[in-house]
């Protein structure tokens, strides 16, 4: 081995170890506490491990943990579906049709995504108060659609432009409508891109906190992040065991989604980032 190779292996080993400790450390700590019967075992040295924290969080009806979870899943899923629908239509128009404004629209939409959430949430609250929507799923789904659609548009655009225009032309000559072209030809071909944009939208909604804490009041509409931020357990001060068990369960859907579909997520992030 040359000197350079030795340096290289050392660097790889050290950085690799650091990466492992840095990324997994807090995650392992979370799981560890969730399995312990008390959070202060580092000081007291007494501890027993069991799944009782998980059992409590999942079965104690008064904690409403399952309500938060189902609200989150519903809201994120519905948003992802609608955003996929609307953004793929728009991406189709912008990337494959000729009309005045086709270069302005995406930039305009992109500019919208730069508004910090705080700059719209106050007025959304007023709007939804008047419409009687505060504390409903709709109060989150509607702003989430508007808030995530720009990134979905850009990801879908970057995929759509890679598909040869000749395919559309051939179909149009055969008498197909634009809508049919979109759903029969473009959609299947760009499916990986559409899937990754939908996935990213889902994750963004699952994560969102500011809208959720201001526009919902109780467990009938609150999402997991709000539930966990305001979490009170069944006993003690901050019930770390319950809380970490809830956190671990809340992370599971996203971690699994991410690990299974990592290729799509990376592709989506790239599409969104490089283009947008």
């Amino acid at each position, binding site marked *: 081995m040359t000197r350079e190779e030795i340096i290289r292996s050392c660097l790889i080993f050290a950085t690799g170890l650091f990466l492992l400790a840095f990324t997994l450390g807090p995650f392992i700590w979370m799981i560890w506490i969730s399995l312990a019967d008390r959070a202060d075992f580092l000081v007291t040295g007494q501890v027993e491990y069991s799944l009782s924290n998980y059992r409590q969080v999942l079965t104690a009806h008064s904690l409403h943990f399952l309500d938060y979870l189902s609200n989150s899943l519903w809201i994120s899923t519905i948003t992802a579906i609608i955003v996929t629908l609307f953004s793929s239509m728009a991406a189709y128009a912008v990337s494959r049709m*000729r009309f005045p404004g086709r270069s302005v629209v995406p930039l305009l939409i992109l500019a919208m995504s730069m508004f910090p959430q705080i700059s*719209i949430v106050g007025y959304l609250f007023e709007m939804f108060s008047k419409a009687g929507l505060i504390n409903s799923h709709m109060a989150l789904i509607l702003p989430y659609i508007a808030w995530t659609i720009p990134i979905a548009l850009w990801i879908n655009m970057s995929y759509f432009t890679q598909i040869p225009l000749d395919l559309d032309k051939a179909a149009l000559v055969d008498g197909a409508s634009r809508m049919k072209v979109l759903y029969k030809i473009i959609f299947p071909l760009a499916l990986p891109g559409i899937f990754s944009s939908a996935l990213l939208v889902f994750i963004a909604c699952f994560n969102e906190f500011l809208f959720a804490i201001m526009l919902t009041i109780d467990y009938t509409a609150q999402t997991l992040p709000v539930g966990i931020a305001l*979490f009170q357990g069944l006993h003690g001060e901050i019930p770390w065991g319950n809380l970490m068990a809830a*956190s671990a369960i809340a992370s599971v859907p996203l971690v699994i989604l991410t690990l299974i579909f990592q290729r799509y997520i990376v592709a989506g992030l790239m599409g969104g980032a490089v283009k947008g």
Partner: protein
Amino acid sequence: MASDNFLQQYEKSEVRTAWIFIAPLLLVVGIFVLVPVLGTFYTSLFLDVSYLPEQFVGLRNYTDLLSSPDFWQALRFTLAYTVAAVTLEAFFGVMFALLLNEVFPGRGLLRVVILIPWAIPTIVSARTWQLIYEYTYGIMNYLVVNSGLVSERINWLGTEFGAFSALVLADVWKTTPFVVLILLAGLQAIPEDIYQQAKVDGAGLFRRFYKITLPMLMPVLVISLIFRTIDSLRMFDLVYVLTGGGPGGSTRTLSYLGFEAFANDNFGMGSTVSVVTFVVAFAITLVYLKAGKFSEQLK
């Protein structure tokens, strides 16, 4: 001439169809982003507190805000936080991306593992970090005391600097993976033969990094940092859980300041903070766009 010709090529039916295709998107964004932004500006001109009659006050909320030390504190904090977090994310991002671009046993595993922090909801990671920093039995104090670094436990969230670093660290943990992913793709786009040529010319490991890798990575790095900057400037959730703005109101971001006003029923002031936050974020984005010649990338 040419452009006239171009314009005539639009087909009327196609133009109409195109707008129909875009309409739903424009509609949602218009109603749920554009209208609220304008509405927020409108509200910011009022004294809007539920127990007082609503009253038009012009720009008084703005003059009140700009003369309040809270605002400058929050602005300073937001900017310092953004600079610190984004710098560290760039550093660790480059480091990890370089690692994951090398060929070595276990690389596949590390590429998967790095995604975990990114996949965990911010609030969950905030709660986890809250427990890590816990004074009496958090693992951070356990580690620093038992390793002999310090003799007494540190009250991490108790000093301005401690709370600041705690927030930055939690943010770096959560978002570095995003930077790594984008940089990794950038690295993979650098052709291997440039390195081979440099090797033949006798350039060492570090020289190759400075002369080839870093310059070629720059555009992608700038893009990922723009994203991170925009995101950090609007940070809210970590503060809400980890410090609640304390100690002494020293860790309030602009978004948190706005939320605080809304949640205390002062919608006029909340809107004013929101508008100013937007202006700050927008100005910084513009500077970035210019500096990074980002607009060229958009073509």
